C-alpha cells in the first residue's frame, strides 16, 4: 500500500454539516469519535479510499477567515500552514448567497479546493434547483452535491478528492478583483511578498492581508516561519503601510 498520506481539511460556515461529513468519511474505516454540536478545536480522523490513506481535519465553522476570532484563526492557520492536499468547503445549499463568502475567501488562499454543496435534500424540499455545473465553471473548482446525513454523494466526493490529490484536476479558482486602487497596491506589493515568503504561501492573499493591516496573520507567520521575520516582514509591513 502506498505510504503517502494525503490531508483533507473541512471548512465552512457554522452548521453546514462538516462534522456529519467527517463522521461519514471516517466511519468508512474507523470511528475516531463523535463530535456533536459546535466544533471548537479541530478533530482529526482517517479514512482509506482505493488503497490510499487520508487524514481528515474537521475545522470550526466560521463565516469568514478574516475577523480574527479564535475559531477563524484555527481555520485560517490550518489552511495556510497545514497546507492540506485538498480543502473541502462545505456549503449550505439552501443559503448559497451567505455561504459563498467563505468559499471565495478560501479560493484566495489555495487552488486545491472542492466545493461541497451539502444539505441538498433540504434544497430539494424547498424546490431549489442549483446549476452545479455552472457554479463549478464560475468558481473554477469542482462542485459536488451532497446530503451528508443520508450519505448521498459520498462516492462522487471521494473520487473527486482522489483525482485532485493525484493532480488530475486542473483548477482555476475565481479571483475576486478589487478596486483599481487596491489592485495597484497589490501589484506593487506582490514582488516584495514573493521575495519574503517565497512560493510557500499564496502571495496575492498575503498582500491583501498586509494591506488590511492584519496583524494576527503576521504573528502567525512569525510563529510558523521564523525567518520570515528576519528582516523581511517588518519591511513588508512598513511597505504595505506606505503603499
Amino acid at each position, binding site marked *: 500500500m502506498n505510504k503517502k498520506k494525503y490531508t483533507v481539511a473541512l471548512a465552512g460556515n457554522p452548521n453546514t454539516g462538516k462534522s456529519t461529513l467527517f463522521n461519514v468519511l471516517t466511519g468508512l474505516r474507523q470511528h475516531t469519535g463523535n463530535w456533536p454540536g459546535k466544533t471548537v478545536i479541530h478533530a482529526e480522523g482517517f479514512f482509506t479510499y482505493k488503497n490510499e490513506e487520508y487524514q481528515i481535519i474537521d475545522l470550526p465553522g466560521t*463565516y*469568514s477567515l*478574516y*475577523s480574527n476570532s479564535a475559531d477563524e484563526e484555527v481555520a485560517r492557520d490550518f489552511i495556510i500552514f497545514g497546507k492540506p492536499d485538498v480543502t473541502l468547503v462545505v456549503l449550505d445549499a*439552501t*443559503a448559497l*448567497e*451567505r455561504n459563498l*463568502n467563505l468559499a471565495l475567501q478560501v479560493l484566495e488562499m489555495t487552488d486545491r479546493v472542492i466545493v461541497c454543496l451539502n444539505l441538498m435534500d433540504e434544497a430539494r424540499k424547498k424546490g431549489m434547483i442549483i446549476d452545479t455545473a455552472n457554479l463549478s465553471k464560475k468558481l473554477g473548482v469542482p462542485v459536488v452535491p451532497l446530503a451528508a446525513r443520508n450519505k448521498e454523494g459520498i462516492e462522487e466526493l471521494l473520487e473527486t478528492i482522489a483525482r485532485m490529490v493525484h493532480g488530475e484536476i486542473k483548477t482555476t479558482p475565481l479571483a475576486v478583483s478589487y478596486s483599481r486602487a487596491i489592485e495597484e497596491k497589490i501589484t506593487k506589493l506582490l514582488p516584495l511578498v514573493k521575495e519574503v515568503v517565497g512560493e510557500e504561501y499564496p502571495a496575492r492573499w498575503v498582500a491583501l492581508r498586509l494591506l488590511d493591516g492584519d496583524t494576527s496573520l503576521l504573528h502567525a507567520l512569525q510563529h510558523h516561519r521564523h525567518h520570515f521575520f528576519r528582516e523581511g516582514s517588518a519591511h513588508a509591513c512598513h511597505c504595505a503601510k506606505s503603499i
Partner: protein
Amino acid sequence: MARAKLARLSDAKPGERFRITKLEIEGTMKRRLLDLGFVPGSEITVLQKSPLGDPTAYRVSYTTIALRKEESDHIYGERIGNE
C-alpha cells in the same frame, strides 16, 4: 436630492424590515459585520430583543444573527415596515 434621514438598525423594532444603505464604521468590526451578511443592499428582519434589550436577533440571508447595540448602531438604512 431630498431624502429621508437614514435610520440606524438599532432603532428598528421587532417585526420590522430594514434595508441597509451603509456601514458607518471601519476596521475589524466593519469586516465582521460584512462577513455576517450585513452588506449594503441587503434586507434584514428584526426578530426579537433579548429580555434585557441587548443583543437583538436579526434574520439576514436565511440565518439568525444576534448583534449588540454597539454594533447595530453603526448600520444605517431605511426602515421598510412590517412583514
